[in-house]
């Protein structure tokens, strides 16, 4: 078994490498920077204290995505964390067009957002997304199509056509 210094070093590398990914998933799910940072801290604690597959590059990434999504799902049901930060405040650091895209993404159901992100940004296949999120591949495929359609419609209605 590896010594604790080696493990700590490995955990630090993982945290640094996937910090943005965890934060992006949480931010897209929770629409709040502060809440996304809270989730990031919680995911890091889980990484440190649970039996995360730290030696397996692929599995650790999938594990982190799954844990982040799960924590966001639970977080969503919280009373205290709801509407803590006005959306306009959250978005003000983004350029106008990006603000509109984010608002459109946030109009999608949560699972659609995650699927869109994993497919278009992380380049996972439908089968991989299904495995990570614990969904049926057909569900992922149909959700992806619906999300794509909704996002496109929303964008067209909003005066932009991104595709």
């Amino acid at each position, binding site marked *: 078994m590896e010594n604790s210094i080696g493990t700590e070093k490995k955990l630090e590398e993982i945290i640094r490498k996937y910090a943005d990914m965890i934060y992006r998933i949480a931010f897209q799910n929770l629409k709040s920077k502060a809440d996304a940072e809270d989730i990031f801290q919680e995911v*890091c604690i889980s990484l*440190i*204290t649970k039996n995360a597959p730290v030696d397996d590059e692929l599995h650790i990434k999938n594990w982190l995505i799954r844990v982040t999504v799960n924590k966001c799902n639970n977080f*969503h*049901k919280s009373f*205290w964390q709801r509407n803590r930060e006005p959306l306009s405040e959250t978005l003000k650091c983004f350029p106008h067009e990006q603000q509109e895209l984010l608002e459109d993404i*946030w109009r999608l159901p949560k699972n659609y957002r995650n699927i869109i992100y994993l497919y278009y940004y992380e380049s996972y296949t439908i089968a991989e997304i299904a495995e990570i999120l614990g969904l049926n591949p057909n569900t992922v495929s149909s959700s992806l199509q619906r999300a794509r359609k909704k996002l496109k419609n929303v964008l067209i209605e909003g005066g932009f056509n991104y595709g």
Partner: protein
Amino acid sequence: MDKKFYRETIDSIKISHKAVDEAIEKLHSGDTVGKVIKMEKPKHFKLKAAGMAAAVLALVVALSAVFYPYSASKSPVAPKNKNNNSFFITANAAEATNDEAKSEKITSNDFVKIGEVVPTVGFLTYDVGDNDISNDRMVGLFNYDLKCEGNNIDKVTYKIDNATFCVKNGYKPVIDKDGQNDLFKLYGLTVGEEGEYGAYYSYTVDYDNQPDLSKYADDITAPLQILGGINEKEQKGQTTKVHGKAKWSEYYNSIFNDTVITVTVTFKDGTEQSQKLQLQCDYKDDKNILVNAKVIE
């Protein structure tokens, strides 16, 4: 959709260096790692201590049987205990202050902590769509850890009234469960997504493979949780926007007013014994919201 623009937008979402440094600092401080190690030591000790206690008890019982066989069979309690079937319930809830699991026998004397509110979740509401809160219901989700100890036990069944167990699908220690996912609708809530959890009135575990839930004390993804709700009358007219902490405290403290868990053990000879636990929610502050239990019959 323009993938490039999407990627650029997502690229611009970056976590602050401060948040990353904070996480790294926690890692190196050993606070969290230490907790894991600390949890293991007392457990080993307890196992040894429990083993020694069991050995001494077994010796006493054996000697009693040898030296006092007649009086034992004439005892008023002998018919009930002649096959040595007995059990008691323990709580193994981690301490909020140091996450150190502490096993404690639950009796009829005082309420004993069996768990606490799921971190970050607190009082729950169900967001229909994302923004429609018209169907919100006030419910609370709690982690807990109950176990049974005794002789000749085969299986243990936990049944809950006026609340529900949330059981993660596929969680192996649970060998049987009874309920319906529609139970969530009573509380206006789904836990997890796509059927990750189910809501059940009761579940059964093997005595020799009882869930170790103490390690999930601060984990929102614990495989077994208790979901309780304020009754409909209390909830009417409430929204998520009003109420100060005093009101929340009042709600919390009433969440398990009528909640009873019936613990039934099935012994290897097919006989059964039950104990009923009354639950109680104890709101200390936002970070310390406990669920306690005591034996009522």
